[in-house]
């Protein structure tokens, strides 16, 4: 069985304008960008964001440096930039409503998380992080979702949640620590649990 090329090998080919490599990276990452955009910006705008993020990948692939980090981190930072840029045109209230929905979807994994196709498709790390997010205390999950998915600053989160800024920072750090540990466990142990 032939090994699947790594993301890093594919992005190097994209830098040489290899459409087949570009298509493979699209298949690996488009769904993540789309789901995030659809929850925060709506389905129609999500399609534009996906297209814009991937065209930026097409244009900027030569700038990716594997020594500085993983492709997935690099590309999702590009996608996040596109999404947050669109979100900034909307009011904080709309962003909070979108974040609330994401939080509900993540917490209620049992309702949607049995999608076999999704599980097969998903990187095992995503499944591990999903489980970790589900297990986070609600207030920690909320700050992560507001910060990452809705692009709110910690000061804005403090205002929205009514918690002191110091508390928001503490919750953020605790949540990050747990997510990181769960991800490291999953990657280190070759974790394949799906439920």
């Amino acid at each position, binding site marked *: 069985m032939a090994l699947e090329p790594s993301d890093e090998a594919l992005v190097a080919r994209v830098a040489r304008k290899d459409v087949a490599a570009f*298509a493979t990276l699209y298949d690996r990452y488009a769904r993540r960008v789309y789901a995030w955009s659809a929850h925060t910006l709506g389905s129609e705008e999500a399609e534009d964001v996906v297209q814009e993020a991937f065209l930026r990948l097409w244009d900027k692939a030569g700038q990716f440096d594997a020594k500085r980090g993983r492709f997935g981190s690099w590309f999702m930072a590009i996608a996040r930039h596109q999404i947050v840029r669109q979100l900034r045109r909307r009011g904080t209230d709309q962003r909070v409503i979108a974040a609330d929905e994401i939080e509900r*979807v993540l917490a209620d994994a049992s309702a*949607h*998380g049995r999608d076999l196709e999704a599980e097969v498709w998903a990187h095992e790390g995503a499944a*591990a992080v999903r489980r970790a997010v589900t297990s986070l205390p609600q207030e920690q999950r909320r700050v992560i979702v507001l910060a*990452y998915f809705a692009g709110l600053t*910690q000061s804005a989160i403090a205002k929205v949640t009514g918690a002191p800024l110091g508390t928001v920072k503490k919750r953020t750090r605790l949540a990050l620590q747990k997510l990181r540990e769960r991800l490291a466990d999953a990657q280190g142990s070759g974790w394949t649990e799906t439920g």
Partner: protein
Amino acid sequence: MADEDMKEFEDAGVAEELAGALAIASPHRLPPELRGRVLRAAEARAGRSRVLALRRAWLRPVAAAAALVLVIGLVVWNVRLQQGLADERSLLQQLRDNAKESVIFEVIDSAGAQKVILRAAGPQRPGEDPPYGKLYTNANQTQAVIMGGRLPRPDANRVYHLYLTDRSGTTVDAGVLPVDASGFGYLIYETGIRGPSYTAARLYLQPADANAPGGTLVLAFEPR
């Protein structure tokens, strides 16, 4: 989230997996037709890049040729500028060396001085620098000063004769311009009016007793 937290979040790979986690749990499904649209857009960009690369390849020699022409033009312009400057210095220096009348310097070197260039009018001999001249007037003086350089030595029966035309169209005989062995000469013409102004100046090579324009036109400043 603070910037350093976000960086740590992304470096640890948590960020991308968090987005993956949402994709697993989300009811939103990626529209299948979007894939073709994105790939076509990328291919279109690739096509544009190729066209641009071809254009750039074609433009490169043209740009290089244009740059070369520009450099040559600048060099020629600079040489002419230097030559003009040298001419100016040469004429003034010769005037200082030769002129005895202080009125010359009151006309050409004091406030209110104006000058026009007289250019060679006839066909030039190949390889020879053409003759040239300058006409000075001054708003505070009544004299006009005319200088000429590189003027060919006139034959025995002819002299350089200067004629000036004022705004009313009247042409006057300003006199004979004597020339030394180097081809340099100057003439002071008393106009009788303060701040004279002329629309044309012509230097003819003609018989010594002539008193009207005619003969060989050597230098001219013509109205535009």
